[in-house]
């Protein structure tokens, strides 16, 4: 029975090819744009998630407070309020995985006749763990390097490319402000951060070396930043509270007095970036869905015309024994076939369009089985939803009226 009806629906579609194709086109465009937009939206989400994962997870950054000198207020990090001792104390707190005091700034790196400006990060070994940064060749520096302020450095990919070109940087000596540093490790590639800065344009050196030989701070033991990593996302609120209380106590701040440091939650920043792209991709999908709706209305329109045109045929079918549900099923099936066929073509075009977008613009696209399935389900649903009313009208026809129809 179903096979016979499928055959008939196929015949009916073929009987008016141009009209069927145009009706289908609505679905093709609808499904195609949904698939394309979802691929772009999910691609954006994917690349943001990638970027976020390069920052390191569950991170806080503590920034030392401001100073006011001669009426001029420095920005955050200008005052000498955070110390290495603070960092060591925070490391003792529950739920803290890694703590790394950081002193960073931009410096000119010199290798032979080449020179290059890069971010120099003075820190301690836990920094690499906190940021989930791999060493691709060589080895990291240890606590002893920090204690004795050795002149060793880990170099990022961008800085290495610009200074050394095709040469292997490992074991080479570069100079910063006349001080020689030996490259003992090459860092893995991370790409841009959320602000669009190249994270690989970096040189990492021991904190003590940075303070004494490179930046030269008047307050020994003070740092601008402390990076704190919680053991898990669940531990973050407790860590935030514990850290704040500990620092206020250590800095002897009275009740009601402002913090003399700033606390930035990088996880929250990452979340908001992820949320932004999520909203964007939902929005893209929603806009594309409108065209799916328009496609559905097109199907309804044509099915209504078809029912009117075939009124006599419906009368004949009823006279020879078709039940109402047979007529309903026949027209419903036709609508669903048009929409599903349109959906299949739309899927192919949408995926093709997404691949083309990737090819031409290099934009990251993600085609998930889920989005394909959703598009397909929605198309079948549109067929049933918009096909039902015309089919119902056909089935409700009075046999004798339908037979008399010319």
């Amino acid at each position: 029975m179903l096979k016979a009806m499928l055959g008939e629906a196929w015949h009916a579609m073929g009987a008016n090819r141009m009209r069927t194709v145009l009706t289908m086109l609505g679905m093709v465009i609808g499904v195609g744009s949904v698939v394309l937009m979802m691929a772009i939206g999910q691609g954006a989400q994917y690349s943001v998630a990638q970027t976020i994962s390069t920052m390191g997870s569950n991170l806080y950054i503590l920034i030392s407070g401001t100073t006011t000198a001669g009426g001029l207020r420095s920005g955050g990090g200008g005052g000498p309020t955070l110390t290495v001792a603070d960092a060591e104390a925070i490391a003792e707190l529950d739920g803290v995985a890694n703590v790394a005091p950081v002193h960073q700034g931009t410096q000119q790196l010199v290798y032979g006749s080449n020179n290059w400006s890069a971010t120099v990060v003075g820190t301690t070994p836990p920094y690499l763990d906190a940021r989930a940064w791999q060493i691709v060749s060589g080895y990291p520096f240890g606590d002893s390097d920090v204690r004795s302020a050795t002149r060793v450095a880990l170099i990022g990919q961008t800085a290495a490319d610009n200074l050394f070109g095709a040469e292997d940087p490992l074991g080479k000596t570069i100079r910063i402000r006349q001080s020689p540093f030996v490259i003992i490790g090459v860092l893995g590639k991370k790409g841009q951060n959320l602000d669009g800065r190249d994270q690989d344009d970096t040189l990492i050196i021991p904190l003590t070396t940075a303070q004494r030989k490179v930046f030269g701070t008047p307050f020994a033991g003070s740092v601008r930043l402390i990076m704190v990593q919680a053991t898990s996302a669940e531990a973050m609120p407790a860590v935030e509270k514990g850290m704040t209380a500990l620092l206020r106590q250590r800095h002897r701040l009275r009740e009601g007095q402002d913090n003399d440091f700033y606390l930035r939650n990088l996880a929250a920043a990452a979340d908001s970036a992820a949320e932004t792209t999520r909203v964007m991709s939902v929005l893209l999908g929603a806009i594309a869905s409108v065209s799916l709706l328009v496609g559905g209305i097109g199907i309804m329109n044509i099915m209504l015309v078809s029912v009117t045109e075939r009124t006599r045929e419906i009368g004949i079918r009823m006279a020879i024994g078709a039940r109402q549900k047979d007529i309903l099923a026949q027209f419903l099936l036709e609508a669903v076939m048009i929409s599903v066929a349109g959906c299949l073509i739309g899927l192919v075009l949408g995926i093709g369009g997404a691949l083309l977008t990737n090819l031409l613009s290099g934009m990251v696209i993600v085609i998930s089985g889920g989005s394909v399935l959703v598009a397909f389900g929605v198309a079948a649903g549109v067929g049933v939803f918009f096909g039902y009313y015309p089919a119902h009208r056909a089935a409700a026809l009075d046999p004798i009226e339908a037979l008399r129809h010319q």
Partner: protein
Amino acid sequence: MPEAIIRVAGLGKSYLTAAGPFPALRGVDLEIEAGEFVAIMGPSGSGKSTFMNLLGCLDTPSSGDYFLVGRNAAQLGKDELAALRNLTIGFVFQGFNLLPRMTLEDNVALPLVYAGFEREARRARARLELGRVGLGDYTASLPSRISGGQQQRVAIARALVNSPRLILADEPTGNLDSHTSDEIMALFAELNREGITIVLVTHEADIAAYARRQVRFRDGLIVSDLPTPAPALAAATC
């Protein structure tokens, strides 16, 4: 005595028109036994087509009762009426009413689709019936490629395909020339000899002569109900 295949009592039907209700049938009583061959006659507007539509369960009466094979049509649901039209009744129309985009075989097999037969069984039955009406070589043709007489034969094959007990034919020769009409009527007479009850609407006396009983309508009432005169019957069948 067997139950009459058709029994109507006080059957009435009114249509709503701009000038108020118009009574097309005004209380008709009639019984038709299984195996009869009845011609319903009368001028246009006499109510004979309305009567046919009621007999075929295509329309519902305004008053009175209709018993088809002993079942009260008024008490049957839409699906049950559809099943009656499918299995008990075979329709033959004046305008043939074949589906133009389907092959003859598919047209004949269509009632079997609604009866729930499998594809192979449908094909076999459809070919058998097409052969019976002399069109076994045209199974894959479209209705537009054959003559009117042939189209009516296909319609008869379609009416026969579910082995109905009753064939209702509404002016089956109205669109055919006299020679073809005689061929079609000879086919009906043969089917009647095989035991199928046939009720036929016509306004032509020589067509009605093929039937064995003639019921005359005028203004929504039966005015005469007589056996066909013997000489006419003999002339028509020889």
